[in-house]
């Protein structure tokens, strides 16, 4: 087989957007280039999760006529016709008038989609264009030689839990390409290596954790169709950034979720319990009455904004999507930026590909992002998340309306540092779906007899964490991976949801996470 011209790490919206665009641009120029995409998930979309209220114009540009293609993605997509912003207190709910909300937060023209299904759709389109897509391959290390990105090295496979090789062991394979586009998602391991090597953002990246469920109804849901609802307030305390959402995915399906900024201060905050507390609110539970949860998922969102984004390109490499940090917090949107960034990187890559594997500079990528309006939106939102981090809900909310006008770039602390010693939420168990069931409904599976992809760097550090932070990993992990046995943390790594919370949220930065061997993790089908 010939070498690879463009290697894309990650088959999510950004990666597949890049793959499709690369093939299109090459074809327009009358060239044949090889585009290969790898992804650690077992099948397209399995590790993709989002709300999502989506701005579809980007697909009109990328795949004209896409709305007419019959696919579970287009079949389950619904236009937004009604939107509400609610403020919740423990028993009450009040509508926030639309007029108060800035235009950016309105969802006119949006469609509600399943990001998982969109990914499956994009994979099919990419395959038709001749993109090589390989699922079940985990990239662990960026390969850099003489200051240039050469490709990635995969995880080795076929090891026992004790690290000894089994009969089917394959040493870590290297994949080299003329251009490598890193699309490995929020807190992606290879993207972070890229940033460390070629330039981090001025601010650390900060995340929010989204907990989500798909609820199905035997008859039309009480929530109704074509509707988006966002909530503020309960169950979050004023110091916790976040909000809830309900999105219609048809007459009988509702996506419900709760997003929490990882800079919460409580050592014992359990996001899955918070999610159930949210669902138990009288107003919310009425809207979901009669429904059955058929699927769940959890994943983080990069929220630091443009100040957390570092170098975008280097010789031989570019970063795109959530891995780069293109989420606009004012709109709480990242999907269409992910695709746009992928398209920009692809156009840059194809233009830079010369004869005999020579590659020109990739700096033009930044101009592409500028031209697509991505950087403009990111600049406008540059202090949005920051004002909430600094001021909490009651100061942040009014400030957020004018955050674009703040003249300087505000800093932000890393999420794990925000947990306060002794701070406890003491949330009572709402007695609804338990954590084990939540994990079961994500479909997550890992080989049991493999080395743990999660490591506690220094177990001694965890001892003081008990009193200070209630061993917060035992609470904050939506996969129930961490258990305190009285003296040390015990791991169930096969529960892991690859949500990327733990390395960031541990107050002592005491957790190491690498992606496990390929083909494992959640099996999201319609999230």
């Amino acid at each position: 087989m010939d070498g690879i011209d463009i290697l894309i790490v990650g088959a999510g919206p950004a990666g597949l957007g890049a793959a499709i665009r690369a093939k299109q641009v090459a074809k327009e120029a009358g060239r044949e280039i090889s585009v290969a995409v790898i992804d650690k998930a077992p099948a397209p979309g399995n590790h993709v999760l989002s709300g999502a209220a989506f701005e579809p114009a980007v697909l009109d540009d990328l795949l004209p006529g896409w709305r007419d293609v019959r696919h579970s993605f287009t079949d389950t997509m619904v236009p937004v016709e009604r939107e509400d912003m609610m403020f919740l207190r423990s028993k009450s709910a009040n509508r926030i008038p639309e007029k108060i909300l800035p235009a950016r937060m309105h969802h006119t023209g949006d469609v509600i989609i399943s990001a998982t299904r969109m990914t499956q759709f994009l994979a099919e389109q990419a395959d038709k264009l001749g993109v090589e897509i390989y699922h079940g391959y985990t990239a662990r290390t960026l390969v850099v030689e003489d200051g240039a990105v050469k490709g990635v090295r995969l995880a080795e496979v076929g090891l026992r839990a004790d690290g000894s090789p089994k009969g089917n062991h394959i040493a870590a394979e290297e994949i080299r390409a003329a251009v490598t586009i890193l699309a490995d998602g929020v807190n992606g391991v290879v993207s972070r290596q890229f940033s460390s090597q070629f330039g981090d953002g001025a601010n650390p990246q900060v995340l929010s954790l989204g907990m989500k469920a798909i609820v199905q109804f035997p008859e039309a849901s009480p929530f109704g169709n074509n509707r988006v609802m966002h909530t503020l307030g309960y169950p979050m305390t004023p110091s916790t950034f976040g909000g809830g959402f309900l999105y219609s995915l048809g007459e009988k399906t509702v996506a419900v979720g709760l997003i929490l900024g990882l800079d919460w201060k409580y050592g014992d905050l359990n996001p899955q319990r918070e999610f159930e507390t949210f669902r138990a609110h009288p107003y919310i539970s009425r809207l979901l009455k009669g429904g059955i949860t058929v699927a769940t998922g959890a994943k983080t969102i990069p929220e630091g904004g443009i100040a957390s984004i570092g170098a975008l390109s280097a010789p031989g490499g570019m970063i795109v999507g959530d891995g780069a940090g293109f989420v606009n917090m004012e709109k709480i949107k990242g999907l269409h930026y992910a695709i746009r960034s992928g398209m920009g990187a692809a156009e840059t890559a194809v233009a830079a590909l010369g004869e005999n594997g020579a590659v020109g500079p990739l700096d033009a990528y930044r101009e592409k992002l500028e031209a697509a309006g991505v950087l403009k939106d990111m600049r406008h939102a540059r202090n949005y998340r920051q004002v909430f981090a600094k001021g909490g809900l009651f100061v942040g909310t009014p400030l957020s309306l004018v955050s674009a006008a703040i003249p300087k770039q505000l800093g932000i602390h890393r999420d794990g540092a925000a947990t306060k010693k002794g701070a406890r939420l003491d949330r009572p168990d709402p007695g609804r779906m338990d954590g084990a069931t939540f994990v079961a409904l994500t479909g997550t599976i890992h080989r049991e007899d493999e080395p743990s992809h999660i490591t506690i760097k220094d177990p001694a550090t965890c001892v003081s964490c008990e009193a200070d932070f209630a061993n917060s990993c035992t609470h904050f992990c939506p996969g129930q991976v961490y258990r305190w046995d009285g003296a040390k943390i015990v791991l169930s790594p096969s529960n892991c949801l690859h949500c990327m919370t733990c390395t960031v949220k541990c107050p002592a930065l005491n957790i190491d996470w690498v992606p496990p061997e390929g083909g494992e993790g959640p099996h999201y089908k319609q999230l």
Partner: protein
Amino acid sequence: MEAAGSRVPLGAAKFVIAACARPAPVGAMHCIVLVKQVPDVSNIPEDAWDREKGTLRRGLLDSVLNPLDLHALTFAKRITAGDPDAKTVYLTMGPPQARDVLIDCLSRAGGEAVLLTDRAMGGADTVATAYSLALAIRRIETELFGGDRNYVIVSGMQSVDGDTAQVPPQLAEDLDIDQIAYAQDVHTEPELKFRRIGAAGTEDVVPKVFPVLVTVTACTDTLYAGFAAARTARSATIHTWSAADVGATADKVGIKGSRTTVYRIFSPSEDRAKQCVMVSDAADLMKQVQAKYRLATGGPAAHEEGAYHLDGKEPTYKGELWILAEREGDGIKSVSLELLGKTRELAAFLGEKVGVVLPCDVAGDLPAELIAHGADVVYAIEHPLLATFSPIPFKTAVAALVNERHPQVMLFGATPMGRELAPRIAYACDSGLTADCTKLEIGDHIKGGNALVGILKQTRPALGGNIMATIMTKDSPTQMATVRPGVFKIPPRDESRTGEIVRITPDLPTDLVEAEVTPVESFVSKVNIRDAKIIVSGGHGIRTRTDFDRLLQPLAESLGDLLGDGAKVAASRHAVEDGYRTHDYQVGQTGQTVAPKLYVAIGISGAVQHVSGMQMSDTVVAINKDPRARIFNYADFGIVGDLETVVPQLTRAAQEAK
């Protein structure tokens, strides 16, 4: 790249293999690996269940390579490893998208592939599938191996959708070749030798005639698809052949060629729903369990199927109802007697006689024993070649008798012998076969305009045990089925019964070349959980081997003390996989079927594979962290809670209650 098949009119092409003994093989040993694309039943999304209809929406399941086929291809790689001339061909019969599993195989182990695909082949049962695959194999031998008969056909033992394990032996029957089942290991030096699990223990088998068919258990570290190999596989050769390309006749493929048909699919929980009383206090639970235990009648719970009445209707089938009796030591295997009891009951509904086929070298007292247990006729087939079990002589002798006498029903125990033999007999008798039945009934069925009267309705789990299917035989002279040991009760012995003994000396070929078989290690199961009156069983919910021992053993002992009966610890398949116990202790579809007076399921989810192995227990107590665990549908009492807390509480309560 795909090589299109040549245009051959249906029925005209013939790829014939002559079945005869050959000298020891020289040169490369090729492999044909049989693979199948199946639904991924290991990961069923919640919305794939149609709770109203009680079925599974198969379209919502991912398609994957059958898990045992991964072992087959890894096993085949061991056979061909180190020989650059040895060819490997992956063969699958399926719709066009089955191509994906061939690419998967090629990515893992290289080689070539054949996709046998034709709309006419859709809906095939095992008989029609075996027929079609056999034709493809003949063409592979002629075209891809150049007529070289030095090859091994490697197959996983069964596929997770049908779970019958019938296609490989039926394929072997069609090709008239020998089969080596339950293979666990293979050596190629100094000669090709397979280690397999036989009826009495492990044995080494050196085949002397080729080709030979080998079915493998989950015995390997399955090969991964390296990235470079996956890229190369995209340009590997995949031949696409239609029914015409392999010379198939239309009436023998697909639905037309099938001898069984599924007529009902339902959810397993319909089958045996219990009303679970949820308890939170351990002492209270112990009291209730004790009370119920004292009332229990003991032994497997009686079947509650209703009687069937012909009421003067003309039954669709005529003739005796037969079972195949298996010998064990000097006596008859329990499962044969269990089947005899059930067949007595079924035959009585139809007013027909019960026949027992006993292949042996010398029948001795056994016919009398069988008559005392309910046989009306015993067909003692006596021949020196039938002294110990070997598929081909046994199949030849029994099939000849069946083809001569036309029983309307033939039942076999789903034992290692039964699973190898029954499919070959069924194929040789042109009859449908349903494997691993958990229920057998006589009933009527209206299909289209036709009324079927007094037919055998055969119910069994499928799709990895996630659904139950009821099956009828069609277009067959005899309705055949296999049944697992422990499903039916051994009938009481009645010395006064009389019956006929028919002695038969079969015509068996004297020049059969046997494989060289060397016993390695015999296993008399030291562990017999089937006899225990009390079983404490642990599952995946238990985190470590240490926990398994320290939680379950004391509970078993204290329950045994309290209730005055022997108690044993057992395990679910997950727990065996986790290494908490060996396979002897496994309860479930791929383990043992047990029916104790008390079954305590700890940290067991209640997947039907497990439940089918214990649902005949008198009293079931379930302990699980998940209140929605399916096990509670099969339990009389349940506690939801953390195992580490609840189980010691129960042990203490049992000790204090004494």
